[in-house]
């Protein structure tokens, strides 16, 4: 495959960035998107040019480290992570625009790498349960109904990649937060801190500069794990009940 890439290049957090065009010939359709970028970087290195900085870790679609805005789609045209996207999803001769996630809460560090520690701070505010460590309790000590376990598991699939924020017209982090609130709220272990969790997470979310949700659905569509929009309804209900003392 022969491709034309338009890639966002930016030397540092405060530097001005711009889209730079690269011609990339001889790409195999079986390469992953990140392998294609690896090939580009090897060629740039050989020419003595600065390679393109981008994030990746497991390359198995489970860690949430990678994430690129690919021709206007978060994680590209397939419902998966950028690392699990393959070049056969593109056409020979295609021009692909590659940009970093754009959100004030996710500042660009360099090229396609953004700082997503805002998500960590939301988790630190409330995305946890408090439990005694030491002797592990018996697994059947606290029983969880199947429907609750299934919904908790569905929400727990969130890998915190940030595609929801990137795809949202308001750069809102509500799908991420909704996933965490639903995950812990469906389980008995999540109940003691349920009210303070949602209040603290929403306050941190707003303070980090994420926007509000307008229930448009771009987040859920972009989510590589298919987290549905109803976790945002759960988040809203928890917040409303927490603030009226009914949770």
């Amino acid at each position, binding site marked *: 495959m022969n491709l034309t890439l*338009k890639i*966002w290049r930016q030397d540092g957090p405060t530097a001005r960035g711009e*889209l730079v065009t690269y011609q990339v010939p001889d790409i195999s359709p079986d390469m992953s998107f990140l392998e294609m970028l690896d090939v580009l970087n090897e060629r740039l290195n050989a020419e003595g040019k600065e390679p393109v900085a981008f994030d990746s870790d497991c390359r198995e679609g489970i860690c949430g480290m990678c994430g690129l*805005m690919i*021709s*206007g*789609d978060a994680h590209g045209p397939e419902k998966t992570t950028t690392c699990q996207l393959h070049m056969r999803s593109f056409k020979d001769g295609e021009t692909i*625009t590659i*940009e970093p996630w*754009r*959100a*004030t*809460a996710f500042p*660009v560090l360099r090229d396609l790498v953004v700082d997503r520690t805002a998500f960590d*701070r939301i988790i*630190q*505010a409330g995305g*946890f349960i*408090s439990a005694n460590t030491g002797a592990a309790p018996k697994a059947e000590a606290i029983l969880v109904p199947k429907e609750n376990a299934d919904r908790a598991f569905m929400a727990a699939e969130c890998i915190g990649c940030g595609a929801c924020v990137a*795809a949202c*017209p*308001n*750069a*809102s982090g*509500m799908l991420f937060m909704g996933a965490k609130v639903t995950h812990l709220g469906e389980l008995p272990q999540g109940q003691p801190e349920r009210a303070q969790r949602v*209040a*603290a997470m*929403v*306050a*941190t*979310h*707003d*303070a980090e*500069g*994420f*926007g*509000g*949700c*307008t*229930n*448009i*659905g*771009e987040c*859920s*569509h*972009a989510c590589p794990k298919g987290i*549905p*929009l*109803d976790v*945002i*309804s*759960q*988040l*809203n*209900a*928890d*917040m*409303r*009940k927490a*603030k009226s003392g009914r949770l």
Partner: protein
Amino acid sequence: MATSTLPASTPAVRSSIGLKLLMAGSGLLFVFYVLAHAYGNLMVLGGPDAFNNYAHHLRTLGEPMLPYSGFLWVFRLVLIAALALHVYAALTLWGRANGARSTKYAVKKAAASSLASRTMRFGGIALLLFVIFHLLHLTTHTIRPQGEQPTPYANVVNSFDKWWLVLIYAVAVIALAFHLHHGIWSAAQTLGWTSTTAARRNAKFLAHFIGSLVPTAFLIPPLCILFGIVD
């Protein structure tokens, strides 16, 4: 586990979800209002007596417990308060959303969102401008293309025999249709009533049903007058 970030001390009502709840609550009040308003408008089809009686009855509703027009004024004050909250929350959230993405994408696809959801903000402004025009036209009679008329019925019928006035109202009703199609569903979601697949489907159905019913009911009287079915 220690928390490294203290939650910001913004009051809950000014949090993004608090503002959304204000929008949803005031918005649902408007939904009930447009349902009642559209139903009232259909009285035009009953002829001059039916419509004039309806207009008069709105002013004597609640008498003698309330003074003449008392109910109407209480209703208006509630609507004005709801409108102020709706607009305040919308503008605040709009501002925050703009701030939340200071650098725009060079290429961005709208992959899942409906046209109705993407036109909420400008559609809302269009509706606000229309409400001002509508009040100046048929409430205060400041704008009077129909001339001076003796009765509410005459005011309506002699307005909507003008094609351009029908056009302005039709455009506004289409804007309302879009606003309702996304707004009703969005309000249900914000109030946290759509946490299951079935509830979500029902909320979407209700949004499309009311979002089609109300605009249709609003369009029937002006079109009947324009085409001479009512005169």
